[in-house]
C-alpha cells in the first residue's frame, strides 16, 4: 500500500503548466473578443443582407446556361483549365523544394532555409503575385495559371515534405540486402511510395484551387472570379447567385471525384 501511495505522490504535477496555458488561451480569447462589434447591425443593414440573400436564391438562370463567352459555364471551364494547369505548375515547383526542405534528406541549415523560403512564398498575398505575373504575361488566364501555381507551392511543398519524412525506410533495408545501389533504391523503393501520396496531395490541391478561383478574380487573372467580384461590387446579387451555384456544384462534383481518386491512390 505504501508503494501505491508513493506512486500517487510521484504523479507528475503539470497542473501549473496546464493552468498557465489555459490562462494564456483564455486571455488571448478575451483580447481577441475586442474586435466584436454589433454597432452596425440594424434594421436596414439586415434588410440589405436580406436583399442579398434574395438575389442569391433567385439566380440569373440565363447567365447560367447561355453559351457565350460571358456565360457561367464557359467561365467555369476556363476556371478549371486555370486551376488544373496551375496545380501542375505548383506541383512541378514544389517537388524540388520539398526535397530541399525534408530534414531527413538534406542537412539542417538547408532544410531550415528552404522552410523559411516556403513561408515567404506562401505569405506573399495572391494579389501581389497577380500583379507580378501580369507584368510577365499580361492580364490573361495565363497570369492566373502562374498565380495559382505559386500560391499552391506553400501547401503542396508542406504536404510533400510530410510524405518524404514519413518514408518507410525498412523497404530500403530489404533492397540493400538484395544488392541494390542507391539509385535503384530511390527508383524502386522511394518513388513508388511517394508517387501515390504526391498525386493524392496534388489532386487535393486542385480541389482547393477551384475554391480559390474567386481570389483570382481580384488579380485580373481570368476565370469565374472576376465576373463574380464585379457582380458583387455592382450589387447584382442574382448574378452572384448564378455564379455561385455553378461554382458550388462544380466544386462538389470535383470533390466527389477527387475523394474517390485519392482513396484509390492511397488505399489501392
Amino acid at each position, binding site marked *: 500500500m505504501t508503494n501505491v501511495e508513493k506512486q500517487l505522490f510521484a504523479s507528475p504535477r503539470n497542473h501549473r503548466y496546464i493552468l498557465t496555458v489555459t490562462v494564456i488561451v483564455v486571455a488571448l480569447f478575451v483580447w481577441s473578443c475586442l474586435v466584436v462589434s454589433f454597432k452596425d447591425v440594424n434594421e436596414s*443593414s439586415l434588410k*440589405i443582407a436580406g436583399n442579398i440573400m434574395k438575389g442569391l436564391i433567385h439566380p440569373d438562370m440565363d447567365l447560367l446556361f447561355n453559351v457565350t463567352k460571358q456565360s457561367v459555364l464557359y467561365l467555369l471551364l476556363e476556371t478549371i483549365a486555370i486551376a488544373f494547369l496551375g496545380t501542375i505548375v505548383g506541383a512541378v515547383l514544389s517537388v524540388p523544394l520539398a526535397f530541399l526542405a525534408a530534414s531527413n534528406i538534406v542537412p539542417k541549415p538547408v532544410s531550415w532555409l528552404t522552410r523559411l523560403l516556403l513561408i515567404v512564398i506562401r505569405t506573399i498575398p495572391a494579389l501581389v503575385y497577380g*500583379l507580378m505575373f501580369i*507584368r*510577365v504575361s499580361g*492580364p490573361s488566364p495565363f497570369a492566373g495559371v502562374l498565380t495559382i501555381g505559386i500560391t499552391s507551392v506553400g501547401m503542396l511543398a508542406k504536404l510533400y515534405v510530410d510524405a518524404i519524412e514519413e518514408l518507410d525506410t525498412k523497404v530500403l533495408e530489404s533492397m540493400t540486402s538484395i544488392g541494390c545501389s542507391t539509385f535503384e533504391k530511390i527508383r524502386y523503393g522511394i518513388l513508388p511510395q511517394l508517387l501515390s501520396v504526391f498525386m493524392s496531395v496534388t489532386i487535393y490541391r486542385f480541389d482547393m484551387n477551384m475554391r480559390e478561383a474567386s481570389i483570382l478574380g*481580384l*488579380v485580373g487573372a481570368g476565370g469565374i472570379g472576376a465576373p463574380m467580384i464585379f457582380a458583387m461590387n455592382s*450589387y447584382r446579387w442574382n448574378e452572384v447567385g448564378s455564379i455561385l451555384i455553378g461554382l458550388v456544384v462544380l466544386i462538389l462534383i470535383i470533390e466527389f471525384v477527387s475523394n474517390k481518386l485519392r482513396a484509390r491512390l492511397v488505399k489501392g
Partner: protein
Amino acid sequence: GSKNENNAASSPSDSASPSASAASPSASPAAQEIKELKISFVPSKDPEQIITATEPLKDLLKNQLATEGYNVDKVSIDVGTTYEAVGEALSAGTTDIGLIPGGTYVLYDDGADVILTATRAGLSNDSEDPALWNKNKPTEPTEQQATYYRGLIIAGPSAKGQELGAKINNGEELTWDDLNSANWAVMSSSSSSGYIYPTLWLQEKYQKGISDLKNVFTSDSYGSSFARLAAGQADVLVVYADGRRDYVEKWNTDFGRTASIWDETNVIGVTDGIYNDTISVSKKSKLMTDEFKKALQDAFMAIAQTEEGKQVIAVYSHEGYQPAQSSDYDAERQAQEFLKSLKQ
C-alpha cells in the same frame, strides 16, 4: 491624319515583343502589319457594361487605323480587375493601350505615355458651393465639354447626415467637429475622387486630412459605399460628381429606401476639378513609335466623332478626346506627392 509609312517601317518591323509584332519584311510603302493590339480598360464602371459596350471599338479602331496606314489583325480588349493591374500591364508592356484615370497614369508614368485626355459632358452643376448642388437637383449632363470632373462629399439619410445637409443648406459653414463626428465611407487612398481630392479639400478648409477623421472606413466599391449610406452605416461618402446618377434606381430597389436619392442626400463639399481619364500607351510596347502614337491619337479622335464611336465611349461618359501631354498632369502629380508626404 498624316501618313508616314516610310518612316514607320523601320522600327516596328524588328519588334520582338511577344504580344505583338509587326511583320513587314521590306520597307515598302504598303500598310504596316500589326498582329495584335491589346487595349485594357479600368473597371471604373461596371466591367460587364464596358466589355459589351466596347465590342464595336475593335472594328472601329481597325478601320480607322487602316486609313492611317496600319493593318491590325486583331484588337483584343480586356477589363482589368483593378487599376493597378492595368497600370502594371502598361508599365511592363504586356498591354499596349490603357484607358486609365489621370491618377493612375501619373503613378505609372515611368512605363506609360499619355496621348489623349477624354472630354466629357459638363454637369448642370459645376459650382464649388455645395448648397447650389442641393438646390439645383437632380444633377444632369449638359452639352458642354469638360476636361475635368469634380469629387463630391455627400451626406446621407442618417440623422447625422441630415444634420450636416441641413447646415449646408442653411448657409452655415461646417466645422471640423461636425465632420469628425460623422461616419465616412471613402475609397482606397489612390482613388482620385474617392480619396485624394477629398483630402485636398479637407486640407484646404481644415488643414487636416481624411486620415485625421475619427470614423473612416474604406469601401470596396462606390456601390457598396452607397449601400452603406442607405443603411445608415455611413453618414458621409465621397464620390465622383455624377455618382448619384448611377444609383438612382438601386437606391430604391436594392438599398430599400423609399424617397429618391436626390431628396435623401445632400452635397456638403465639392472638390477641385480632377483631370479626366487618359488614353495612355505603354512605353515598353515595341509598337509605340511616334508615328504610331500619332496615328492612334488621330484614330481615337476620329472615332469619337462618329455616331458609333460616341456610343462606345459613352460607357465612361467620355464624349471626345483631346491630345494631351505629360505636363497636363502636373497638378495631379503634386496632389499625389502631397498625399504621399502625408502617408509617411
